[in-house]
């Protein structure tokens, strides 16, 4: 029997052919939040406490990038043994006016990245344990394989 595939965190993204990050939108002032949350609107001029889930733009622009040449400490779980470095990007979503982090798709490194480059959201494996494959979002430069 094959292992089940589960999101590494519930409710932050959708998977499938056209995956999306799920943010929150304030029902009072319409500002966006990511990760999705309940509770209080961060806008100091808004006292609303109700949010609706909203799918965020699946493409954005690289604000900056870096990588992790050394294995991060727990609770990070490496998907490979031995550890293989990965790149991280901060991506500006223009419509929502936010910059959101994510790993870069496996196999790509900082030499494949530039500030200002367009990237697209995809879903990949973060790690695998005895029970399941745990999925997470990642970013890939538009046009890169």
């Amino acid at each position, binding site marked *: 029997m094959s292992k089940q595939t589960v999101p*590494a*965190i519930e409710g932050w993204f959708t998977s499938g052919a056209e995956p999306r990050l799920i943010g929150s939108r304030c029902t009072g*002032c*319409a*500002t*966006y*939040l*990511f*990760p999705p949350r309940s509770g209080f609107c*961060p*806008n*100091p*001029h808004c006292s609303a406490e109700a949010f609706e889930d909203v799918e965020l733009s699946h493409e954005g622009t690289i*604000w*900056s*990038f*870096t*990588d*992790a*040449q*050394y*294995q*991060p*400490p*727990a*609770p*990070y*779980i490496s998907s490979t043994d031995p550890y293989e470095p*990965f*790149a*991280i990007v*901060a991506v500006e979503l223009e*419509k*929502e*006016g*936010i*910059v*959101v*982090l*994510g*790993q870069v798709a496996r196999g790509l490194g*900082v030499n494949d990245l*530039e*500030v*200002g480059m367009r990237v697209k959201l995809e879903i990949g494996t*973060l790690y695998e344990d005895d029970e399941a494959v745990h999925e*997470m979002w990642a970013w890939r430069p538009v046009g890169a394989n």
Partner: protein
Amino acid sequence: MASEREVVVLGAGMHPWGKWGRSFIEYGVAAARAALDDAGVAWPEIQFVAGADTIRNGYPGYVAGATFSQALGWTGAKISSSYAACASGTQAIASARAQILAGLCEVALVVGADTTPKGFFAPVGGERRDDPDWLRFHLLGATNPTYFGLYARRRMALHGATDIDFATVKVKNAAHGLGNPYARYRKETSVEEVLNSPMVADPLRLLEICATSDGGAALVLCSKEFAERRGATGQVRIAGISTVTPSYPNTVIEMPNFATDSSAVLPVPNEAFRHSIAHAAYEEAGVDPSDVSLAEVYDLSSALELDWYEDLGLCEVGEAEHLLRSGASSLGGRIPVNASGGLSSFGEAIPAQAIAQVCELTWQLRGTAEGRQVEGAKVGVSANQGLFGHGSSVVVVR
């Protein structure tokens, strides 16, 4: 106006930074005794104790005010304990200063000390899926250097900073730290050696990222009247403290967050968070950035120091590389930055670090910073920032 808000720094003391793994209490008590000696004040005279907390040393670390007071011997003094991550030290200084300014006490002791584990800072243990600090490690593998790397690459893209600039900051700070008896690393380095050290978080290399250290720092603060009664005139004074938060929307990605605030419905503030931190301290102190003789800033990475030059108003935005390359931020230059050697030479002892910055500024303004003295220093500024949005900046004058 500004003078009414001033509090005297009567004593400063530190335990050297290192990596010994002994109790943080030991470092804090040594620093406290050194500050008391320096002030000529006996421990039982202290009316208020402000402890800067550490969260990595069990319960005693969370109640640092009581822990240090008990270690020095209970006297019935009033206490406080402050936690604000890297900004804890400034919170403790602000707490003691407010007591003095309000007339609730005349003389106070501020203490911070830490013992740190080796390697990357990891989040507090347990599975905590509602804590962004835990989640960023688990879901992204985003360590502290990840964020420093992002700032550094951004600076390269926007302002043309180079690997050599970042390495030059390290070389400068290592040279400054050589003469500082409290620094952990007292070794010269070269641009070549820095660039040959292993890459950690592109474009930052091992020698460009601040280590974690053990250490302790303390200050004795008092009212002008108390200092005068002791015959201590012409002392260094705290003229301004900033503990501001960001303003919404903060559109710079901050540790440990997954995303920035949204600028969809409100315009981005004119002043970004890090810029607003020092600005608030300058305003309270009634000084202009052009008045500043030296600055102690949080060089968590070599590249981040360049951001601070601009955030502190030491130069215009985009001019930090020029300031560095001209030698202006080196000892002997127009505005030396991190004359102490900075975090580059110390490593970070979290609750002690912001207090240590003020110790250094105090010695510099007194003209007693042997081996690293900034000639004729009159105004000093410190700056850092604590996780989740704690601004931290102190202006001292003489």
